[in-house]
């Protein structure tokens, strides 16, 4: 099954417009002027969906969809959004049952806007079930992933923020994979820039192996036990790429890689993690306070070895050669690190694939994000050339590198 880039752009735009429509409905009812921040399509393990919500309390309104798209859509509000939203509703009250029914009412109207946009575009009807109200922590606000853990799914996720109040809410649309892939393929205009959609998930598996090896390497070098966490491939407008990273300060490395595919790769640690990982690498106590030049060279070394593992892992599986420049150490606001990379890629394309991995550890404050921005024509070429059986070779080959 093939999905062309044009249809990914179209579906991304549909999800964005749906989120805009839902936000406009809320504004009409409550006067709350929120804005859609990011909309992206992500292909990832079902079990990892909502991982970014971990630990926070949410209120969710879930809907089942039936028709050309089957699946679930959930409107997720940060719990502290609930009362201000309900109180902004004429006649709304934040007391118990009243609050629940007010949130359901708002959710229902927002969702109708969201789903109608899709149905209009697909020239069909999509029914949605009555809203179900859920209060839960983290990903439990989304439909349960029990029994479908390692299945790959498309997630359409929009992040909406309400700047005056610093509150956030999200729309997660989780269509059944096969039907979604069929709808996308049916809406493909051309075959010329088609992406073999089945291979995108293979690519995810390769990336996971590469991340795992990079994580093992961190452990070998520093003694810090890490786990490779979420690995996903997303598709978003180029201007949304820098927003994938928080605006807080990060330390890390950036390289340009060249081959099939070429592009940019950043390995980013939050400041505390960077200090921890750098000090674990140092043979002696650093001279001076804070983040010293010794820390910087330790991060450079770490970035280099992690990059090599990651990029060489792809190259071996794809049986192509991918070179990379020496790492440049960066220490700045996360978005400001990503925006020059997005701008470079944005000179040739309006949307981009973003390959993301995260690793972390429970023992110590340590987390690391890897973001790769491949050129989309070359990524397509790499996927075209990929024989699915070859993904198993990643493990052996990455081991050879280290």
């Amino acid at each position, binding site marked *: 099954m093939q999905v062309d880039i044009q249809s990914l752009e179209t579906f991304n735009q549909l999800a964005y417009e749906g989120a805009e429509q839902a936000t406009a409905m809320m504004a009409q009812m409550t006067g709350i002027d929120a804005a859609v921040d990011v909309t992206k399509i992500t292909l990832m393990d079902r079990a990892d969906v909502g991982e970014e919500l971990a630990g926070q309390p949410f209120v969710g309104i879930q809907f089942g969809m039936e028709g050309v798209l089957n699946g679930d859509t959930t409107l997720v509000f940060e719990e502290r959004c609930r009362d201000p939203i309900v109180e902004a509703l004429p006649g709304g009250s934040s007391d118990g049952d009243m609050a629940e029914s007010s949130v359901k009412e708002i959710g229902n109207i927002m969702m109708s806007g969201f789903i109608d946009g899709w149905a209009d575009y697909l020239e069909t009807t999509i029914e949605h079930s009555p809203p179900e109200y859920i209060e839960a922590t983290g990903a439990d606000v989304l439909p349960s992933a029990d029994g479908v853990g390692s299945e790959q799914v498309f997630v359409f996720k929009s992040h909406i923020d309400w700047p005056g109040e610093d509150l956030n809410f999200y729309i997660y649309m989780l269509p059944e994979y096969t039907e979604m892939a069929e709808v996308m393929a049916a809406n493909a205009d051309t075959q010329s820039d088609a992406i073999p959609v089945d291979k995108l998930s293979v690519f995810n598996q390769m990336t996971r192996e590469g991340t795992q090896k990079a994580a093992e390497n961190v452990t070998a070098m520093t003694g810090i036990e890490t786990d490779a966490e979420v690995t996903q491939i997303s598709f978003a407008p180029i201007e949304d790429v*820098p927003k994938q990273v928080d605006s807080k300060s990060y330390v890390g490395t950036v390289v340009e890689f060249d081959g099939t595919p070429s592009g940019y790769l950043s390995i980013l640690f939050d400041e505390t993690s960077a200090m921890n990982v750098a000090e674990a690498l140092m043979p002696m106590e650093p001279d001076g306070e804070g983040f010293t030049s010794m820390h910087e060279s330790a991060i450079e070394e770490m970035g280099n070895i992690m990059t090599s593992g990651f990029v060489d892992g792809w190259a071996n599986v794809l049986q192509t050669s991918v070179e990379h420049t020496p790492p440049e150490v960066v220490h700045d*606001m996360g978005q*400001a*690190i990503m*925006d*020059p990379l*997005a*701008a470079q890629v944005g000179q040739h394309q309006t949307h981009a694939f973003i390959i993301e991995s995260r690793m972390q550890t429970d023992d110590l404050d340590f987390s690391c994000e890897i973001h790769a921005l491949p050129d989309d024509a070359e990524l397509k070429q790499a996927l075209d050339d990929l024989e699915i059986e070859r993904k198993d070779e990643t493990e052996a080959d990455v081991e050879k590198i280290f």
Partner: protein
Amino acid sequence: MKVYDGSSGTSTESQQERLKVGIAEYEVTTSGANLTTSGLGSCLGIAMYDEAAGVAGLVHVMLPSADEVDDTNEAKFADTGIELLVSEMERAGASTRHIEAKVAGGSDMLDFSQNGSGIGVRNVEQVEETLDSLNIPIVSQDVGGDHGRSLKLDGNSGDLTVKSANKGSQII
């Protein structure tokens, strides 16, 4: 006139409306709102202010020229983004005869030299050229260097606060 000093949040300050400007977006205010944008690397923020009309605007552009990529989002490019912001400010009552511009961002923190001049430098050059063609003066700027920036334009005063991760903040 309220002046934002970047450190103390007075009660008047906290009541001032804040509008967030994302990448490849713009906002115009006639009510003295604070217009903010964050995480400028090679991107550029162009703040414009017409004191006489009480109109302020901010656009966050990513690439120099709309001629380079086939994209309908005018606010993404320095040339079309400035033209768009100026026309929206004019609709809100501003006049190009009175508009003054402040520019910040366009750093070259990453050197991928085989691509010629960095995008940050080219963004700055394009902004200067487009503003010049519209006869809008750049009254202050904080561009280039190798660090990221976040901006806050006070719609009441036209003061532009530029904050960087490692170099503190300043009003230009």
